[in-house]
């Protein structure tokens, strides 16, 4: 028992960024609900859930390259590419829909794999390689979808963007009003999609040698090599998983909007926001420290901040300024660590 508490204490100490983010999120979100005219209701929760899924996945996608000590400037573009693919494929019979989803996710993973291969075997810096492959992803998205549109299955759209009750109701799985089901009926499907995929992929990854190698590379690539860890495999796996997460975001965005849109500015916004989310979630841009779950939390924080603009009244032409200042302030929270540092050499690590 004391063993466990000691481990827990060490965990909290070593992951201050993450726990800080978690507390910040709770405070922000609870306050938001108090201020909202219909706070603490399923409707609000469902709405919030829908809004966060895509950015949360993209932030998780960004986490892996960041843990390696790099950056992926293509995550937004890969998400867009996946959304465009999904907008072409996710309709028809249930089997066709499933196949369409699988192909979408596989395409994203394949693009991530390509990123990984280029970076590993071309020996390129991730940030610059993905700056370029991001343009390629965007070009492919534009080929697939020169104009916004698509016909994603509308039942799927409704079922995936509401509470479990509506999901069951849409597909007539069973009586959604059944008594036993009520404690679960309120849960937003997007949350199940998000947290389900996050848990099912991240936990095994984190607890595999490959996952550990990703951390080791970000922390000290030389040491990782000397320790005989599979560096190339880990890098490729990280980018592939990143591509997969980005595709999850794209798939959800396509389902949510029943369409695809190869919008270059939107892709760029997602990429930049993903970096902000990763930092807010306590992942170090130097690599080696953090987690995809942290980035998920970071993405939630970013979004919850933007929720506030709809419930408080700010002059619309001052909004971008306030938004900018809040973002700057949020990322500057990391400076608190700096003030505590007593040995200036610690500043450089």
């Amino acid at each position, binding site marked *: 028992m004391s063993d466990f508490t000691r481990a827990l204490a060490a965990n909290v100490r070593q992951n201050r960024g993450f726990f800080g983010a978690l507390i910040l999120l709770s405070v922000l979100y609870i306050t938001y609900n108090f201020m909202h005219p219909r706070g603490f209701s399923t409707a609000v929760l469902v709405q919030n859930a829908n809004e966060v899924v895509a950015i949360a996945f993209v932030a998780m996608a960004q986490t892996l390259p960041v843990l390696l000590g790099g950056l992926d400037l293509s995550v937004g573009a890969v998400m867009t590419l996946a959304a465009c693919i999904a907008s072409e494929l996710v309709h028809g019979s249930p089997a066709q829909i499933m196949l369409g989803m699988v192909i979408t996710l596989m395409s994203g993973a394949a693009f991530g794999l390509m990123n990984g291969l280029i970076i590993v075997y071309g020996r390129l810096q991730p940030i610059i390689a993905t700056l370029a492959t991001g343009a390629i992803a965007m070009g492919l998205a534009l080929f697939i979808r020169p104009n916004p549109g698509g016909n994603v299955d509308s039942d799927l759209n409704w079922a995936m963007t509401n509470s479990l009750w509506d999901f069951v109701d849409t597909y007539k799985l069973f009586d959604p009003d059944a008594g036993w089901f009520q404690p679960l009926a309120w849960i937003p499907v997007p949350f199940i999609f998000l947290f389900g995929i996050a848990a099912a992929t991240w936990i095994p990854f984190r*607890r595999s040698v490959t996952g550990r190698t990703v951390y*080791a590379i970000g*922390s000290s690539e*030389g*040491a990782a*090599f*000397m320790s*005989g860890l599979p560096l190339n495999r880990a890098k490729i796996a990280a980018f592939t998983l990143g591509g997969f997460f980005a595709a999850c975001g794209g798939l959800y965005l396509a389902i949510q909007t029943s369409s695809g849109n190869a919008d270059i500015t939107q892709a760029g916004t997602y990429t930049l926001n993903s970096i902000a989310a990763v930092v807010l979630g306590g992942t170090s841009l130097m690599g080696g420290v953090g987690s995809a779950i942290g980035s998920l939390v970071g993405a939630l924080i970013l979004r919850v901040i933007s929720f506030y603009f709809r419930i408080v009244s700010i002059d619309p032409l001052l909004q971008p300024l306030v938004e900018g200042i809040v973002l700057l302030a949020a990322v500057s929270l990391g400076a608190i660590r700096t003030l505590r540092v007593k*040995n200036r050499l610690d500043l450089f690590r």
Partner: protein
Amino acid sequence: MTSSDQFDQPIVQLSGVSKYFSGARALEGVDFACRRGSTHAILGENGAGKSTLIKIMSGVLRPDTGRLLVNGNAVHFASPSEAARAGVVCIFQELSLVPDLSVADNISISDPPRRFGMIDARAQRRRAEALLARIKCEDVDPNALVRDLSLSRRQMVEIAKALGKNPQVLILDEATSALTSRDVQTVYDLLAELKADNVASLFISHRMNEVEALCDTLSVFRNGSHVETFAKGAKSDRDIVCLMIGRDVEAQFPPKPAAKEHAPCLSIEELKWENRLNGVNLSVGAGEIVGLGGLDGQGQKELLLALFGVLRGVQGTVNAGGSIDIPNSPAASKSGQARIALVPEDRKTEGLMLPMSIADNLLAASYDKISSGPFINPALERQAVADGVSKLQIKIGQSKDAVATLSGGNQQKVVIAKWLMTDPDIILLNDPTRGIDVGTKQEIYKLMRDLADAGKAILFYSTDYAELIGCCDRVAVMYDGAILTELRGEAITEEAIVAAALNIDTGAAA
């Protein structure tokens, strides 16, 4: 030696191995063998090719020519993990620990215990505890991040990690360079144990006394060639050193001048920082070499860093050449009333910009000296670089080569030369001879004495007692963030230093 008994067959053998780095030779035509159950020292000056040799054995580097045999079979290790599977495990000179992972993670890094295919964190922790206990490091918390450990603890964790791989051949490349004497003893015991288990140990160290105490066989390398292998005791120390550096050495340490009063140049009163410095009082005179002794981690490094302006929130008085401000940055301390220089602990991360040229590294602290206004004067620049290289006899190809291509000892010389260029009054040295060969060490000792004779005040931290005894006019032994004992003159003996370091009163204190 000629027995064909398969137990007598060398466990690792290299034949005709050569290795070149962009044309420059690191090893050439090396034949080398190592037997089961032996503790085998590899000696040679910096850049002799020792690390290259063991990197080849352990799968980090591939030889350009020649063969590597393990148990008589030719092998081609593609990676350190393949070598480890074949029983060849190495503790590298540059540590192979991952700073942001925990001690337990590091110890089982590439082959952790698993449950349901996933890493079993609890089993991993128990394994770490067991291995740490074996090397008497119960004080290291398996959950702690390696980043938070001191260098000596890290070296011990590295040893635990190597032990976890059940080595047939254990290679220690200067793995004891930062260890405290207690840990060194532990390592001695461990090697004896391994020897009894018929494990071969290869041991690289620049400390002759360690080699004496541990090894049964010695191999000397020079300039990338294997010079000779012989049993311990077959040659005198002096002969060995002669083999290593190709010339004779008389005395290791330059003679100390007679004790005299020095005008104080640096005086420190009640210096406090966090809980690591608890009121340090010390003064160093111009022309004096003062050694800092004690167990590792008693605040010696913090003291040097505090004097150099690196630490925040330092309290107390520091009087350096008449100015009583505690500098708040290295930039301030190098240009204060009394100019201060610091040769830092880790040359790779703190002393050098490895990918940059030798010239740029040499000049990094003295741009003001070679500039007129904000502009650099190319003539002065060339002159300064040439001076620096010749003054310390740094072995370089061209001054525009990356400093990373130099051997460890020459890299260290670059760091020292960089600081001598600023013409400092007070020189702080943090273990400057770590990982440096005897010949170079001797040059550094001589240089220190020359600097002292030229009126510099030198504060010198070392983990090697012999150095403190041989070089210092005075030794201040630190314990728990304060100086409890100062030894001077004849009183500087190993017993006295050890006693003071352990805070045992033997009456030897001056």
